[in-house]
């Protein structure tokens, strides 16, 4: 596949007081790829997502999506450009119904006004696609974790995302659910021709679904390559296991 950069993160620094959360992150995400992001706790993975989605502004550096500079955009603009995310600690709109949850990004995604009825039809389709149709009228906080994670996926699709940032969608799922989630992700990626960036701790899954894996440690990318290359990288082993074991 010819690399076609869709998202370019260039030398992004983010400092909270004395803490360097991001320390010169450089990363290119190609169109249509499934990129796995791993790294120890506190490496800056979620912070990187927050910078991409405009929730945090970087101290310096640039984030370009499809030629647009994202660091100057507000989170809602970035969403309308086609960047959507899910949250590590799932955050569906708790007391809205599952259907309403998915309708929120749909009614906001175009300049053209989408009517409530039209939006609900699109939302029903997406719920059907992720397997939540029977829960459409149930309040989101009544669903189990796996289903709430699916709401977040459907919501990202509802935003008309071209790139989806998944923050540990597998965390907390049991083995059966994690496999189901991985299959669903693969299928959705194909159907909606998505580019996926996926933070994940579950090595078994991330090593099988990713086209490419990058490793973040202390706010910088320390390794980048195919899952096999990354697993063999001594620097990565050091970051995870410490000097004496690597």
């Amino acid at each position, binding site marked *: 596949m010819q690399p076609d950069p869709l998202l370019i993160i260039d030398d992004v620094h983010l400092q909270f007081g004395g803490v360097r959360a991001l320390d010169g992150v450089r990363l290119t995400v190609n169109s249509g790829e499934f990129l796995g992001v791993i790294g120890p706790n506190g490496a800056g993975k979620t912070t990187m997502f927050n910078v991409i989605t405009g929730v945090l502004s970087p101290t310096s550096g640039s984030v370009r999506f499809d030629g647009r500079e994202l660091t100057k955009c507000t989170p809602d603009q970035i969403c309308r450009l086609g960047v959507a995310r899910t949250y590590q600690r799932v955050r569906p709109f708790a007391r809205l119904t599952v259907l309403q949850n998915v309708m*929120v990004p749909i009614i906001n995604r175009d300049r053209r006004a989408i009517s409530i009825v039209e939006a*609900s039809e699109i939302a029903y389709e997406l719920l059907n696609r992720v397997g939540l149709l029977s829960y459409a009228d149930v309040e989101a906080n*009544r669903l189990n974790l796996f289903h709430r994670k699916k709401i977040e996926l459907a919501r990202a699709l509802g935003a008309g995302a071209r790139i989806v940032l998944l923050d540990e969608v597998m965390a907390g799922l049991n083995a059966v659910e994690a496999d189901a989630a991985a299959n669903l992700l693969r299928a959705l990626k194909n159907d909606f021709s998505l580019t996926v960036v996926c933070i994940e701790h579950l090595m078994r899954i991330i090593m099988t679904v990713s086209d490419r894996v990058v490793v973040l440690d202390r706010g910088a990318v320390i390794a980048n390559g195919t899952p096999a290359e990354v697993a063999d990288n001594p620097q990565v082993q050091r970051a995870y296991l410490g000097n004496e074991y690597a």
Partner: protein
Amino acid sequence: MHAQQSSWRGFAIFAVIVAVCAILPYTHVPDFYIQQAFSILFFAGLAQSWNILGGYTGYLSLGHSSFVGIGGYTIGCLFYAFHWSPFLTFPLAAVSAAVLALFIGVICFRIRGSYFLIATMLVLFIMQTLANNLPSITNGADGIDLPLFTSDFSEENRIWFYVGLGLMVLTTLVAFCIERSRLGLNLMAIREDEDVARTMGVKVVHCKAIAFMVSAALAGLLGAAYTYRAHVIEPTTAFSVEMSAAPIMMAILGGSRTWIGPLIGAVIYVAASNFLTLSVGNVFSDMLFAVFLICVVLLLPEGITGIFARLRAKPTKAEPPSGATTAMGPGSALHPV
């Protein structure tokens, strides 16, 4: 869709009740009740208007009476300065309240939760101080007297009853439409999680500003009616904490998530407080009323309409929809509401 059907049914019932109420002044109902009805209608409208920002959007304002006051002072001052008829300047009450809301919003929408509550309360005190200290415009603490428009007592009562009814219906229609609109869905998303709403494409500031201005404009109209009916406006009653707190308690009492809640809340609130005043006298009634409100908040956190919602939700709980039989992992326990 389930919820939407029931919402239309609710609106049909509301329309019937309004139609029945509209005949009341022409039956043999004593004047006293017609007079009391105005206060129920006024507070129902006020609670409804507060709920647009407080209930749907989740921004609790303790300064709602700022808009009642500015609405009243708009017609009052224009009469005081130019002798313009209060009936003609009514729409300006809505405009000035909306402008004030926009101004407050620019400053206060950066803060959330209890900080927003406190900021709006401080705005209320600022307004009261201004009204007291700008005698050339507001006639200071003496206030402004407004003319009676008819000397016939029951005719006057009847007119105000219909004005109150009209304003209550107007605010309810606005709330009903917002609730079913894209704006309403965005507002509810903001209430649930403002940061997530923003990353889902919601223009948060824009939506909050519209909600605040609509809420304020309606309160401004109600304030103008309230003031003209009282034939007087002065700073302490125009900008009062009581007037700000009442609609909050009504909306919470009835349930702040639907347009029905504030209406039910207002009726019960006014009825209960009048009943207590008549039966145990002024001294203990406030205390008993406070106990009553605390009980409601403790026992019915979702308000009275929350009971209906819970009853409707029961079947889903007993019999989960098909597809719920996926493997249940450690994190998959049904989360309590």
